[in-house]
């Protein structure tokens, strides 16, 4: 029996997953806030409680995410790309590409059938390709972030918008609202622009069937619809896609625990 944990220290949220012999026992999450270490400790304690385990029961903890150096209790770390590749192959045996769209960063990674990382492209330098973009636009449109997706699905066309930059798109949205463009079409334009940026990473890796979408933004129906249209392909989306990084880390932790036992 192997019990392992993965901690994903994201820019916006920390995610914790505890696994037992390749089965997910529980998932917890918390806002990173100003003290990500404390946030992760809390999430971890909560996870142990949910799984009815004590700290000593967990044989290995692996951390990942942009704030990985602030992770508590970590026995080892893994890159975000490595964690994504593991998680993709765990959720879907046909996975060859994993797209991870988080709050401030997006990645596309290619993996083999064992979940080993083969190649990757990262965008961490521009907010227009990450969740922050949708948040900023929801604010500009004065709609709830959760409603952006369903709103965009009602549109049959997209408004013309210069959405290569969050800052420029903000002022574009304001003038589109003044011109009384329907919010549905503006929302669709925003998701289309984001899908364009994200898909360009996938094209750079070479497009193969078996595309998995994970990360917090994978729950947004508007983004998913735009990305499907853009790639002309179905997307494989796991349950609770936000936890993919933590699942990948937990899988690696299990592997490392087994190796130590031998």
């Amino acid at each position, binding site marked *: 029996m192997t019990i392992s944990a993965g901690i994903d220290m994201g820019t916006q949220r920390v995610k914790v997953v505890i696994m037992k012999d390749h089965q997910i026992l529980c998932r917890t999450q918390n806002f990173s806030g100003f003290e990500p270490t404390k946030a992760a400790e809390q999430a971890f304690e909560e996870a142990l409680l949910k799984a009815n385990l004590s700290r000593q029961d967990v044989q290995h903890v692996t951390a990942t995410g942009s704030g990985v150096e602030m992770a508590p209790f970590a026995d080892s770390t893994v890159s975000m790309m490595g964690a994504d590749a593991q998680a993709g192959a765990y959720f879907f045996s046909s996975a060859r590409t994993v797209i991870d769209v988080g709050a401030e960063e997006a990645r596309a990674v290619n993996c083999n059938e064992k979940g080993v990382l083969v190649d990757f492209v990262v965008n961490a*330098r521009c*907010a227009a390709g990450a969740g922050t973009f949708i948040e900023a636009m929801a604010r500009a449109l004065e709609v709830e972030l959760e409603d952006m997706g369903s709103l965009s699905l009602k549109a049959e066309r997209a408004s013309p918008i210069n959405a290569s*930059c*969050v*800052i420029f798109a903000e002022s574009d949205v304001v003038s589109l609202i003044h*011109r009384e463009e329907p919010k549905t079409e503006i929302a669709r334009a925003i998701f289309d622009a984001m899908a364009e940026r994200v898909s360009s990473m996938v094209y750079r890796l070479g497009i193969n069937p078996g595309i998995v979408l994970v990360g917090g933004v994978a729950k947004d129906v508007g983004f998913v619809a735009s990305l499907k249209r853009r790639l002309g392909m179905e997307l494989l989306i796991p349950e609770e896609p936000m936890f993919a990084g933590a699942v990948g880390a937990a899988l690696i932790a299990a592997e490392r625990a087994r190796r130590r036992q031998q």
Partner: protein
Amino acid sequence: MGNEEGGAKEYWRWGEYQRVMPSRDLNSAEIITAGVDVGSVGSKAVIMIDGKVYSWSVMRTGSNSSDSAKKALGWAMENTDLTLKDFDYIVGTGYGRVNVPMANKAITEIACHAKGANYIWGPTVRTVLDVGGQDVKAIRCDETGKVVSFLMNDKCAAGTGRGMEVIADLLKIPIEDVGEVSLSVTEEPEPVSSTCVVFAKTEAVGLLRKGWPKEKVLAAYMRAMSLRMSELVEKVGCEKDFVITGGQSKNIGIVQRVENILGMKSLPVPNVEETGRDPVAAGAIGAALYAKALYEKAIKR
């Protein structure tokens, strides 16, 4: 902040202005032309008498390009005896150039900026850095102000006037003061590490929380902006003489840092009030010059 009267103060809001050169005589004019530069943030109109600046206006672009063009030219005509019928030729330029209703022709802002820089500083200008509201251009030109090559960033707010407005608003420093304030630091800090304005803003908030004084945060941000602009100039190749046009030519904090990074001084700005050679209106000046050339060509036929 206690002396603010109602509502949030708009720190990004820069002053609009209009000037007429009383020294030029309208009655002896042979060719009257205008250049209207509708930028993404500012609209500029320049009226020329026989190829010399007579009056001009600089104002914010509204939500409608053609209205902004009309307003800018209308304001440039204020306190002159000119009516629209007096113009022999009008050229529109800038981001909204196709929406300048009274223009006889539209010309790209790249060509107009090079031409305008040639008028403002003379034939020695070879490299022009134009920092507009939503784009940055590095232009190489010959001694006649003709474009030889150029590079442009209009996809990203980093290093543009808009990026400057965002930080002025965040730090609550009026946009017209940011240059001076940023130079008040005793030691130049490391630039913020994020290129993206959204992330740089988050970084700036973090630095403030760490206890950095406002001017130091501003300097770190402006250093990063200047690096971004200089990169474009270096890519196009910086040849003497070097000049800076557009709204940021007034920002001493940007001008000095760019000069520092490039290791090259930019030509000093002429006395704008006396000469009408305003680097902010360089695009509109170039457009008005092209208007004159086009009119002369038309009457020769």
